[in-house]
């Protein structure tokens, strides 16, 4: 009777269960039986029971009650039980379980067992789940095995040492000497283990790296032996002799040759030889070539060798195998910064890969294409990128859109081209662009005054065909509000003018207002645009008046507030209407990361007035100026008068959030009591003022009052905070 039969019977029983519920029933019964068996005294079937439990565990059911049984089985003198016991330990015990410590002693004993297969079990388990304490305990034992045992054990001890070094970095010192001597062995498994160990030691410690540089000639020798040797049946894979060892040696050479002229020179010839002689028809040959290319590009190789490496990558790009194309692009991505021109030569192939069916290849091609965009190829590249955008998989869309925007911003050959490109992206992938696209585009349009007519015509036409893409609709509404008069003149130099009446334009805006596809903020844009048109059109002002008064009772609070305010503008402040609604001035363009202490004073958001009646806070200027606050990192003094000083420091929390800390101090001779701070922000920004640390400023700056303010930008802000405060001096 085969010892595995009970196990196989159970597996059959579980598999024949037709429903999940039935399976659970079978498993519960089996587990109960297993538990009972565990409690019994030593019987010959212990290993079967544990094996059954391990199967159940793999199906996803709990099996922690088997942990102690693993410990017991590992301590058994029988090999069959040890084998399953150690397997159980690797599957059920990890260093986080307390029971794992109990097997340390068994492992220690088994490491010195006369039977190499028992030693092997212990080594394997230690390398799989050995905790830091176990590693510290058993490291000397492993070192001993590294020096004096047969090759079967040596190779396992080497990998065990690798695990120990990963867990307890300091123990690396212990294995350095042994690792060095293992390189001279003939057995490939041992040499491989030694190379892995040396790689690990060098990666962790730069002194060790220095010492191991001396091994470069030996490594080169071993590689040469592998490359030019004849057929070796033991290690041959499709004509390559031991590719696993070759790749590992190449990786170690990469680490040793990095930033070191001498070492790089020593391996130059070898790398050239491998690069030219390796057969690239099968994957395994390409694996070795790939590793060679990575090494050449990372060390201080001579230029001829570098060119050879990039050419190999170029050949990979033309390979039929998708995998090869994928890794070629990954490697080219790594060197696009340093060897830009070399990679540019392959731009055509890379751009073709954008059309590949495979999602991974597409992603790599996209990243690489974006990196290859430059002033000279911007027009052709953008054509490709835009056509990619219309057909790319959804998960790549927002990355593509941002990439296009960045490229357009950096290399736009003309303003009109820039605006066209952004509009194209908004029409194709409007839902996937980031929030700041709308204000950025508005800023761009405002600043390109010569193209206002062209832009408003394009946007009007876009709006006629599709009002579902919110960013596009928002920008279009804004433009029509600002430049609607240009639409109505019926003239345009850059493009075919439209023949519309005021009614048509108002129709379009009303459609946006009423459409269920429009988001609340889009409707806000449309309403404001309608209002602005009241000063730019001549005949249909009454229609605007009625639209505005209808929305005065809209359920949406933001729209209602706007409508009411516009209504008031019509009724009570009609004399101010033209001035309020006139064209926006050119917005100061401030790029992100621009720390400008002076700008903050112009856009003060904080006003402090000790002992005086309330005054409205400073009007805050356009959003663009506010964005400079996001880039201020230093502390700035915003108010200094009558002995009271208020400083403001910002800390950027997220793309749209900022924590501002206001600190007030008093250098006068008397205390100030009832002191509070007032803040106002534009509508697109939300403010949360936290409680101040106190409300009195003691004299002579003995203590300060601080207050934290959280600032967020939201497109659909619905309230403007204005905290009115009246401080009183004593």
């Amino acid at each position, binding site marked *: 009777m085969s010892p595995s039969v009970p196990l196989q019977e159970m597996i059959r029983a579980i598999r024949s269960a037709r429903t999940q519920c039935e399976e659970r029933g079978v498993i519960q019964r089996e587990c109960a039986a297993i538990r009972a068996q565990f409690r019994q005294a030593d019987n*010959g079937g212990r290993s079967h029971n544990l094996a059954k439990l391990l199967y159940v565990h793999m199906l996803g059911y709990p099996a922690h009650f088997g942990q102690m049984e693993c410990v017991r089985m590992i301590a058994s003198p*029988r090999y*069959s039980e040890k084998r399953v016991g150690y397997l159980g330990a690797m599957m059920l015990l990890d260093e986080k379980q307390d029971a794992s410590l109990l097997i340390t002693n068994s492992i220690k004993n088994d490491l010195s067992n006369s039977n190499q297969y028992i030693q*092997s079990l212990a080594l394997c388990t230690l390398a799989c789940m050995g905790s830091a304490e176990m590693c510290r305990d058993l490291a000397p034992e492993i070192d001993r095995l590294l020096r004096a045992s047969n090759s079967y054990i040596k190779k396992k001890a080497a990998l065990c040492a690798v695990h120990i070094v990963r867990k307890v970095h300091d123990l690396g010192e212990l294995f350095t000497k042994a690792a060095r001597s293992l390189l001279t062995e003939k057995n490939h498994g041992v040499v491989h283990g030694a190379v892995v160990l040396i790689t690990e030691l060098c990666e962790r410690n730069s002194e060790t790296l220095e010492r191991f540089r001396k091994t470069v000639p030996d490594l080169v020798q071993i590689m040469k032996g592998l490359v030019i040797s004849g057929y070796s049946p033991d290690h041959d894979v499709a004509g390559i002799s031991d590719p696993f060892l070759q790749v*590992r040696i190449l990786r170690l050479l990469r680490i040793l040759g990095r930033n070191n002229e001498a070492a790089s020179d020593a391996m130059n010839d070898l790398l050239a030889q491998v690069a030219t002689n390796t057969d690239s028809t099968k994957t395994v040959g390409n694996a070795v070539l790939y590793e060679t290319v990575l090494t050449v590009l990372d060390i201080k190789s001579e230029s001829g060798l570098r060119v050879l490496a990039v050419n190999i990558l170029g050949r990979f790009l033309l390979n039929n195998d*998708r995998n090869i194309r*994928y890794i070629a692009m990954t490697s080219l991505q790594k060197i696009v910064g340093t060897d830009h021109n070399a990679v540019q030569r392959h731009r055509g192939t890379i751009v073709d890969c954008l059309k590949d069916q495979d999602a991974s290849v597409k992603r790599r091609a996209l990243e690489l294409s974006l990196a290859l965009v430059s002033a000279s190829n911007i027009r052709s590249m953008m054509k490709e990128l835009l056509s990619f955008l219309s057909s790319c998989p959804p998960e790549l869309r927002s990355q593509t859109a941002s990439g296009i925007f960045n490229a357009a911003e950096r290399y736009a050959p003309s303003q009109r081209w820039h605006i066209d490109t952004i509009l194209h992206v908004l029409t194709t992938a409007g839902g996937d662009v980031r929030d700041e696209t709308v204000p950025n585009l508005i800023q761009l349009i405002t600043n390109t005054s010569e193209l206002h007519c062209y832009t408003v015509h394009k946007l009007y036409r876009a709006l006629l065909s599709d009002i579902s893409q919110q960013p596009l609709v928002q920008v279009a509404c804004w433009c029509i509000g600002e430049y609607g008069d240009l639409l109505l003149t019926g003239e345009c130099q850059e493009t075919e003018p439209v023949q519309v009446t005021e009614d048509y334009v108002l129709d379009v805006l009303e459609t946006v207002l009423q459409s269920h596809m429009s988001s609340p903020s889009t409707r806000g844009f449309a309403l404001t645009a309608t209002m602005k048109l009241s000063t730019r059109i001549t005949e249909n002002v009454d229609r605007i008046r009625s639209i505005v008064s209808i929305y005065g009772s809209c359920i949406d609070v933001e729209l209602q507030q706007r409508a009411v305010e516009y209504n008031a503008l019509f009724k009570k402040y009609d004399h101010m209407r033209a001035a309020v609604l006139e064209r926006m001035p050119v917005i100061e363009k401030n790029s992100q990361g621009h720390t400008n202490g002076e700008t903050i004073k112009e856009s003060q958001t904080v006003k402090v007035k000790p002992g005086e009646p309330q005054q409205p806070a400073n009007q805050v200027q356009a959003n663009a100026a506010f964005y400079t606050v996001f880039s201020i990192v230093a502390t700035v003094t915003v108010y200094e008068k009558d002995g009271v000083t208020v400083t403001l420091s910002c800390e950027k929390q997220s793309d749209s959030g900022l924590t501002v800390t206001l600190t007030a101090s008093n250098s006068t001779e008397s205390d100030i009591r009832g002191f509070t701070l007032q803040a106002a922000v534009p509508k697109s920004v939300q403010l949360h003022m936290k409680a101040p640390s106190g409300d009195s400023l003691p004299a002579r700056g003995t203590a300060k009052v601080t207050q934290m303010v959280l600032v967020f930008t939201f497109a659909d802000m619905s309230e403007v905070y204005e905290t009115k405060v009246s401080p009183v001096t004593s």
Partner: protein
Amino acid sequence: MMRFMLLFSRQGKLRLQKWFTSMSEREKKKIIRDMTTMVLARQPRSCNFMQWKDLKIVYKRYASLYFCLGVESQENELLALEIIHRYVELLDKYFGNVCELDIIFNFEKAYFILDEFLMGGEIQETSKQIVNRSIEASDMLQEDDISEWYEVELFG
């Protein structure tokens, strides 16, 4: 180094899981879920490499089983494909024309073979013959051990 190796069927049933680093049960379950979802969603002739968090995922389908290897970013993906292929060859030699059922009913043997080929997330032995011989010898040792038990039990 390799972080994990998973074998699962076309329906997403796990047939083998080998973890080369210490992880909680929850993390393991999450990885299994993510891997099966990602790999099973792939088109038939796609690239065998994917990016997942900071790891590279290399997978290949052999008959009804998906072999999925999660490796760190400095590993050679093409070599990882060769590692998977080598493991399949070892299983094939051992079971003789291996199929999924062999791995289901003899899962512990599949683990033993894997433990002779890989260790601690690295390749342990690059020669097929040596791995095969080690497995045979271990199996014989196990047989001797069990027949001893039979003798003791049956004959006292």
